[in-house]
């Protein structure tokens, strides 16, 4: 019996959970959505959207390198994003003033370069045709129990980090110099946050694919920021929205047989536009 959407929510959920692969996918997406939404909220507050974008590009060569080396893909994602985050932190800390046009040229090169290396590694691996679309745009099939467990551990660590340093981190994000004067170690915090951002991006990329990370990392946070300036409420709203985007997107993909990436990004944009409209009323 092929699944079909009904107006009976109970029956829909029952059909969704009928197969183990779908249960795995929903669990993984849920874990990733919560982690990405919470980390993403701080990313938006700290105006580090660009770092998130660069890190998501870096996860592609990471996964390809792991495939080439015969290691689990997750190792590649986490290793490249973690190291990439530290590199970004290092290069921005030196803080030599650069001209706007050179900076933008470098931005273009870093993104294109990371994707070029990833594609090169994937070609050397020889598995281009099967894995390229999965790496770039995600796949809800084939999430194993082990992967769900890995994602859960990383997610718990990221959330724990935010829970512990959330208050000083927010302080440092809003007014860096005042926080520094108040004894907050702003330098260490910003490096640590970039590292956690790297982990969150790596986890998200495994579910949404490298190119669609922003649907879960940026969208919930951006929508929440449109709706409320409050910290606790904003974070909670962001997490809730992340779960809605991820699960409804996966569910629609399951029932319609169209790719999850399309639904996830479309729901994200629709909610964002709606939030904009609500705010401008």
């Amino acid at each position, binding site marked *: 019996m092929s699944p079909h959407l009904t107006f009976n929510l109970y029956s829909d959920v029952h059909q969704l959970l009928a197969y183990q692969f779908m249960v795995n996918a929903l669990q993984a997406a849920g874990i990733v959505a919560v982690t990405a939404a919470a980390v993403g909220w701080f990313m938006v507050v700290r105006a580090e959207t660009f770092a998130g974008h660069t890190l998501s590009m870096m996860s592609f060569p990471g996964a390809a390198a792991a495939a080439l080396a015969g290691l689990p893909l997750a190792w590649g994602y986490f290793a490249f994003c973690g190291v990439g985050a530290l590199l970004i932190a290092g290069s921005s800390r030196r803080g030599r003033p650069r001209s706007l046009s050179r900076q933008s040229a470098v931005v273009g090169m870093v993104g294109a370069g990371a994707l070029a290396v990833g594609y090169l590694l994937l070609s050397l691996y020889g598995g281009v045709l099967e894995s390229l679309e999965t790496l770039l745009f995600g796949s809800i099939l084939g999430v194993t129990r082990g992967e769900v467990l890995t994602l859960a551990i990383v997610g718990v660590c990221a959330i724990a980090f935010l829970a512990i340093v959330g208050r000083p981190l927010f302080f440092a994000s809003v007014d860096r110099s005042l926080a520094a004067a108040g004894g907050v170690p702003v330098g260490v915090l910003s490096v640590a946050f970039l590292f956690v951002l790297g982990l969150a991006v790596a986890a998200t990329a495994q579910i949404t694919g490298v190119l669609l990370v922003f649907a879960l990392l940026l969208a919930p946070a951006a929508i929440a920021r449109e709706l409320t300036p409050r910290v606790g409420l904003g974070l909670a709203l962001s997490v809730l929205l992340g779960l809605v985007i991820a699960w409804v997107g996966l569910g629609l993909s399951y029932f319609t047989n169209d790719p999850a990436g399309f639904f996830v*990004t479309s729901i994200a944009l629709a909610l964002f536009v709606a939030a904009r409209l609500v705010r401008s009323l």
Partner: protein
Amino acid sequence: MGFFGNALLAGSCIAVASGLIGYFVVLRVQVFAGDALSHVAFTGALAAAAAGLDLRVGLFAATVAVALALGIAGGARGAGAQADDATIGMVFVWVLGLGVLFLDIFNTGASGANGTIAARTLFGSIFSLTAGEAQLAALIGVALAVALLAIARPLLLASIDAPLALARGVPVRALGLVFLGLLGLDAAEATQAVGALLLLGLLAAPAGTALRLTANPYRGLALSALIALLAMWVGLALADLVGTVPPGSAVILVAIAGYCGVSLWDGARVDGARGVRSAAVDTIER
């Protein structure tokens, strides 16, 4: 001419056009527009594929339409006004999501689907161009280069000192629109060579390198085209010699290696774009 000759012909013309246009893209800080066009190129090509049309129809239609829309929207909001990061990120990711839908429609369609279309549109497939396609690509590349050179002088002035250009009677807004149109055409062209995801590298790397080497805008323009051409040749040769290396990746990595080499060699001695502003005004005044 074999497949390599076709690739060389098309690639050379595309490289020169991208080098020239890329110089202005970097000088005018419009890398963002290039990024937008790369996303749209992917979705446009796959929309055409899903509809059973030639990929190039979708490529050119989508990139030129979006380039002009960007120009008009930018003009309407006043110079320098740009949407915020969040909006840009959301729209870009949605465009890619739409592309995924078209990809799926194409792959499940009955029209002789093959698994390589995503790789071809995202990372280029210059070695699979036929002679006719290569000649057309070369023709468009040359036309783009000529068109850009024709407007290079006023465009340069408009890019570095818009008020002065306006005072001199240069139609700054119209020029900006024409330039974005050229950029759109070039993005569609370059997608065939290095793919939608990598075309930003072909625009940014040679231009960035040239800006580090010289502050003279005309020399920089020539240098940017030359570097792009060299990167294309070396990249294509590498890809041809080592069969598993994809040509798109090879070209972009050579171009970026060139930028890194120049950065290490001259340190921060020349800061092109800043120098260009003063040097260019002198050059044009003369």
